[in-house]
């Protein structure tokens, strides 16, 4: 184990004989920096790909504050940003406790290192749990939507522009068919769960209530062309919000409906552009995996600290190295937070 930390004692050997410290950083620390550079470029690739897809579909991209609106114990309250802000604070704070543990390690203070490492692990676990809850809400969805044959996504609003859920729109019709499950099927036949409402039920409910309008994915800009657009419901359009169609236009669009979308999965999502959910799952998932593995590594180091491994070694540099990884995870989150929730 001694070989993992180079000590000042090794200075004076031949350059290529080992123990030499290029750029005055130990072997382990230098390798951690190398790893962080490559991992940073991996995340940059993902985020740049997200940017590419978003720019490509800039006019139909979902608006973050309509997607992430949940806060624990506040049911039915639209609270955009608050939950993710809390998550961000938790991660920043666990970064602070980590750097305090590193600092205590420099003073060879085992008790303090143990305490701060423990807090860091707790912070990491809370963050991963929060992310799971965020995913749950995202997957479950809130209002539901309808997809047309052409692949556009239609959402429902009332005549004041307030969002309506499928339950508020659809009418109950006699069921045409039920979900095929393996115990009802022949041999291995089964299918993914059918939506709560069929297209026909949504269309019937829409026809019965003249106050319902369709909201498209397309973002409204206050331009002369948009102001003159006869297909848009007057009085309901807001700049940088989604376009709302007139009743006549809504009927025309809904006639093309072929699929009811509830929540989000890798194929389609009720929030809008299909790629949005894919990137959300992939990037926050990859980040969450980093947090999770960071917690595991922190736990290992925590037990090593408890067992006095670094005390005997005379250096807490290993805490510093996992600290670098942990801060890197925080660093990535800062960018994920900006591109998924703020911009």
């Amino acid at each position, binding site marked *: 184990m001694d070989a993992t930390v180079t000590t000042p004692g090794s200075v004076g050997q031949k350059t290529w004989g080992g123990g030499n410290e290029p750029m005055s950083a130990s072997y382990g620390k230098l390798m951690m920096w190398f790893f962080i550079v490559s991992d940073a470029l991996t995340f940059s690739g993902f985020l740049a790909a997200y940017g590419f897809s978003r720019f*490509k579909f800039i006019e139909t991209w979902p608006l973050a504050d309509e997607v992430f609106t949940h806060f624990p114990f506040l049911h039915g309250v639209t609270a955009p940003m608050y939950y993710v802000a809390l998550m961000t604070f938790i991660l920043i704070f666990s970064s602070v406790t980590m750097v305090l543990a590193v600092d205590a390690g420099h003073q060879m203070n085992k008790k303090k290192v143990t305490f701060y490492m423990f807090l860091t692990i707790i912070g990491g676990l809370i963050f991963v749990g929060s992310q799971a809850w965020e995913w749950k809400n995202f997957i479950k969805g809130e209002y539901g939507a309808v997809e047309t044959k052409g692949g556009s996504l239609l959402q429902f609003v009332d005549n004041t522009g307030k969002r309506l859920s499928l339950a508020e729109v659809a009418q109950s019709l006699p069921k045409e068919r039920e979900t095929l499950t393996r115990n009802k099927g022949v041999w291995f036949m089964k299918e993914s769960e059918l939506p709560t409402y069929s297209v026909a039920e949504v269309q019937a409910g829409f026809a019965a209530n003249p106050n319902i309008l369709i909201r498209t994915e397309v973002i409204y800009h206050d331009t002369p062309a948009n102001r003159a657009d006869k297909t848009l419901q007057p009085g309901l359009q807001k700049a940088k919000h989604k376009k709302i169609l007139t009743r006549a236009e809504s009927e025309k669009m809904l006639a093309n409906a072929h699929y009811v979308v509830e929540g989000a999965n890798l194929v389609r999502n009720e929030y809008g552009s299909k790629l949005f959910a894919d990137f959300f799952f992939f990037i926050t998932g990859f980040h969450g995996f980093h947090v999770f593995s960071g917690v595991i590594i922190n736990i290992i180091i925590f037990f090593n600290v408890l067992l006095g491994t670094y005390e005997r070694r005379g250096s807490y540099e290993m805490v510093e190295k996992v*600290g670098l990884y942990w801060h890197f995870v925080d660093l990535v989150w800062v960018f994920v937070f900006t591109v998924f929730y703020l911009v």
Partner: protein
Amino acid sequence: MAHEHVSNTKRIWFVFALLSVVTTVEVILGIIKPESLLHTNALGMNLLNWVFYILTIVKAYYIVWAFMHIEGEKASLRWSVVAPVIFLVLYLLFILLVEANYIFEIFRDSTIKLYHVKRYALAYLFYFCIHLSFA
């Protein structure tokens, strides 16, 4: 070791306070979305997004410099880590976002329509056949 082992707790708490303030400002701006910033464009992006990106860079700077303590490393290590990442990220963003914007414009303006492609293909086939018959 490159840096002396004195306690840094004062700086750590200062950076924590700074990161918290910046995040709070971002969240507040994200919730109220001031009209004046949201509807003013500069260099192809609205001012609010510029504010968000600049604050993000500020946070990233403090995380790397203070928490990861790259400010205490030798300048050669510091810049061999930071410079390649900055260069490659800027380069990647430049080529991808320009390309994406181009594709967006093609979709919007439909300068290439399928019937155009078909017509050109037919015309070329026709021309090719005539060419062959003369040869």
